[in-house]
């Protein structure tokens, strides 16, 4: 007798499980169809870093070529930060800023330690390429590209 009771109880539990999936079947889908729609990405999203434009001279970056980010990067992703002193100016202007994104861990230490607040995270969330060399960014060139866009 107990066997029959157990079987009936089991069957009821299975049927209630099937009710759940039926309900889900008729519920609207939650899919965001990526290339056609995109998820709202938080403004704090951490992509690779980018250089921020100087408010006073929007065609240039805020970077003062101090090398703090380079020294602080845990994985040595920031390969080369170079700049030159333009005539009649106090601060240096960055000319080369090579970021090896393939070793970056998006920890934000460079952004945090930057004394000039020249670095920020970009929202490049879907970068792909056939070559890994494409991820050696020159942030100055990226900055110029973004400026045009």
């Amino acid at each position, binding site marked *: 007798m107990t066997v029959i009771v157990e079987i009936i*109880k*089991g*069957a009821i*539990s*299975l049927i*209630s*499980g099937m*009710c*759940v*999936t039926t309900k*889900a079947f008729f519920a609207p889908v*939650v899919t965001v169809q990526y290339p056609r729609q995109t998820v709202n*990405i*938080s403004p*704090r*999203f*951490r992509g690779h870093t980018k250089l921020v434009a100087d408010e006073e001279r929007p065609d240039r970056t805020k970077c003062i070529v101090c090398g703090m980010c380079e020294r*602080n*990067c*845990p*994985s040595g992703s920031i390969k080369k930060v170079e700049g030159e002193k333009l005539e009649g100016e106090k601060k240096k202007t960055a000319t080369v800023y090579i970021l090896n994104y393939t070793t970056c*861990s*998006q*920890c*934000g*230490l460079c952004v*945090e*330690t930057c004394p000039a607040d020249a670095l920020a*995270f970009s929202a490049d969330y879907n970068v792909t390429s056939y070559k890994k060399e494409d991820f050696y960014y020159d942030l100055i060139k990226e900055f110029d590209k973004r400026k045009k866009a």
Partner: protein
Amino acid sequence: MVKTVFDDIKNTLKGVEISETSYDERGYHLAIESQKANIINIVEFFDGKGFYLEDLCCVDYKDYLELVYFFNNHKELCRVKVALKVESDKPAAPTISRIYTIANWYEREIHEFFGVYFENHTNLTYLFLHDEIDCYPLRKDRVPVTEDDRRLLNSFKPEEYEDGFFINLGPQHPSTHGVLRVVVKMDGEYIVSAEPVLGYLHRMHEKMAENRSYLQFLPNPPRMDYLGALNYNLGHVTTVEKLCSITVPERAQYIRTITAELNRISSHLLWVGAFVADLGGLTPFLYTFQDREHILDILEGIAGSRLTYCYFRFGGLYNDVDDAFIDATKQFIKHLRGRFGMYEKLVTKNVIFINRVKGIGILEQDKVPKYGCSGPVIRSTGIPFDIRKTEPYAAYDRIGFEIPTGTIGDNLDRYMIRIREMEISLNIIEEAIEKLPSGPFKAEKVPKKLKPPKGDIYHTVESPRGELGVYIVSDETDTPYRMRWRVPSYSNLMTFPYLAKGELISDAIATLGSYDLVIPEIDR
């Protein structure tokens, strides 16, 4: 407790150097300097008292190596550090793996990384490292692998000398959730013995810690346990804060609690899905991921990434939370509470599910100290052991919550505990949000270059998988002299050979799933 243990050792173990230490500074109550001759006696003493071996690690001081044993008690907090010095050339020490089963793996690990030879160890083969390693990686000086050990490299090949039906679960196998390999000897569908092989994802975290400053090590802990990233982040930060005596503002403490609990829920959600997927039901996996996405969105909104958050900083946080975060969290609490009923109908009450997990993989309460397991695994046996209660960190001491416990320690208990813990985490978050004070989110005076005072510290936090311990030896520079991570999955997995023995292969896979293993955490 501390006093009685102190007196007992003084009385029973003659000639042992024992001293009381400041728990607030060091993280342990008693320190014992032992000798090779009496280490076994000391360990047996703690075994008799019902202590468990919390951690066993090694520190290379160049002139000598120091083996550090940590003992603790599940019933009442009493952490004892036992140090044993061994000479640096041809180091050797007696094995304690006969007394504590978990020491078996710890000793193998130390043997690989430091070259310490443990006398009378039953199986001192390589557990972590690959075949072509030519030195002991964690030694300060480059010490080439000895001729004896070279022979041991890759000597673990049971298929060759034993007659039996062997199956390799892994390193690529759908059930191991990563790159764990378990060599299983089978008799038909029944398991005769199971032997995990680790190290397929050994990413040298402990070595890296010695090469980087405290600050630069920040991105590493989240990658050790990618599911409980914030908890690991928290473990690292709180330990260093304690070492440098940095006080953290209240607001930051509460936000740490909220985010760490959110992270715990997301980890448990993924586990519930993966566990049922191990049992063959795929749909709950997608449902839990759907709920998990809400948490990921919330956490991405403040920490910037979806998985390996690097959010906590020494003395506070990377950035403050906004109202959107609070609203989203409140909404999520409401949402998830509504979903539990669905999970109950779909999974918890399902007769097939219950029959698959009930009474399987039973871990008895008295076995627990031998393995030193923690987290839901230990709570399933009925021991209410939770670091959040015993050694509160962040804002856990200001929030009331209960610890769910199981009764017999089977897979069903472990499942129920995690489900219950999610509900409790929701309560914690709710209370923390209510109490969330305003104020700064970051301590004002945190030096850019941390130079902690000389000494060592052991600090623990409760990760979703159990007790996470961080042991730091500082030498007054801005890089740790040695940073040791005691990870929960490691000691939990150690029980697998015992639990799997005599089980059906499908049950063993359910048991393996019930640990909630994260492989990079085990391999470090």
